[in-house]
């Protein structure tokens, strides 16, 4: 049997989770607003705590170990925070420029390969060697890529042979979207199944989950029938 702490965690968690699910009823409710503001507040607090620790572990500890150059990170960081004051927000432009520039350098130096050159190489290599299955796969990939690329040509009119290629590419895209939507649904379903598993394993959690569902549903229906739902729902 669970102790009082574990029990309270499950009771509060199940109730708030069902409050959040109440949006499926189709109307906004004060229960959903309570769950939403709870998550917003506590998650923001969590992010503050974790980021402060990150700054300490990465920055302060490094500076204490002799890496004084890292103090520039704090200087530039405070300059960005000055953006809160509109009169002095121009001070944040230089740190923004530096982070943007280095971020672009970091991103572009690798994305050129992983997102472009390696993708082209992966498409055209192995078109003439390998097993029958490999050849079928590679030729299908190559044809799909070539026939759908015209969609991203915005400065050329798609007519003549290019138009025909784009038309066939459209059909290939629909096949691919069908497969992709199925995989996306699998992902969404997995998220929900995983969440429900948390509240059905072990067995003692099940009555708490069911009771929370019933209480929240009863509350929302009662508020709706008595026309209190709109009146008690916070303004957005």
């Amino acid at each position, binding site marked *: 049997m669970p102790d009082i*702490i574990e029990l309270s965690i499950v009771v509060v*968690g199940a109730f708030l*989770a069902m409050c959040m699910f109440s949006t499926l009823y189709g109307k906004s409710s004060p229960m959903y607003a*309570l769950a939403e*503001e*709870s*998550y917003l*507040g*506590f998650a923001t*607090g969590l992010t*503050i*705590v974790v980021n402060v620790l990150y700054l300490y572990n*990465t920055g302060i500890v490094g500076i204490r170990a002799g890496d004084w*150059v*890292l103090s520039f990170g704090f200087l*530039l*960081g405070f300059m*960005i*925070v000055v953006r809160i004051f509109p009169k002095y*927000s*121009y001070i*944040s432009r230089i740190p923004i420029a*530096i*982070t943007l*520039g*280095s971020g*672009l*350098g*970091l991103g572009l*130096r*690798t*994305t050129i390969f992983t*997102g*472009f050159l390696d993708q082209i190489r992966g498409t055209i290599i192995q078109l003439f060697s390998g097993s029958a299955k490999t050849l079928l*796969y590679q030729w*299908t*990939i190559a044809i*799909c*890529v070539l026939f*759908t*690329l015209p969609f991203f040509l915005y400065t050329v009119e798609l007519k003549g042979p290019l138009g025909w290629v784009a038309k066939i590419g459209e*059909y*290939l895209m*629909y*096949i*691919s979207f*069908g*497969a992709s*939507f*199925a995989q*996306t*649904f699998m992902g*969404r379903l997995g*998220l*929900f199944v995983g*969440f429900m598993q*948390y509240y059905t394993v072990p067995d003692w959690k099940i009555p708490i989950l069911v009771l929370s569902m019933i209480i929240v549903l009863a509350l929302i229906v009662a508020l709706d029938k008595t026309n209190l739902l709109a009146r008690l*729902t*916070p*303004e957005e």
Partner: protein
Amino acid sequence: MSAFFKSREVILTAAGLAFVATFVPYFVTIPELSVISTKLVTITALVNAFTLALAVHSQFMRGMYFVRRRSRGWILKAYMMVTIVLMVIFATMGQDKGPYNWVMLAIVNPLSSVNYGILAFYMASTCARAFRARNMKALLFLAAGFIVLFYQAPLTGSIFPGIEPVALYLTDTFAMAITRTFTMSVTLGAIIFGARVLMGKQPQVLGLGGE
């Protein structure tokens, strides 16, 4: 002094130098430049963490707006701001056990899970109500979707093993190829956008278009 910070040339130079300092050492090994690059990258990591302060400030400002106006439900906005402060206080009491851990397990984690878990419902509803075989393209879409959906249900794969090669062919070729096309296009777009920013042709990004 303010003219220095507002100067277009200074800002573009800072961005350009930071770009060169992180981009060039990746391809050309110059020991001194590599050291500068590594330090600059760590400094950038630290600076990015500070941007959270701006988000928290926005959150508080928005909450205060509702509280000051006494809008319907303002108490919940006040509650939200109190919970931010409470969580920070709880963290100082220890993160292993105690109220911080309790809030994580009882509030943050379940609500985070529902946030995304609820998408299953919306997606199921959308799929059931919008996916109609109106024409050939929609029919192809549904056919491919059905085959992959059937395959993804583990029971089908064990009862009808023949569905696996068909479903894998659809996912490992068509789906992958289109994603590859999108990846290449997005990458090219990102490269061009980056070049435009560094050349000063996207002034708003660097805050040069006015505050």
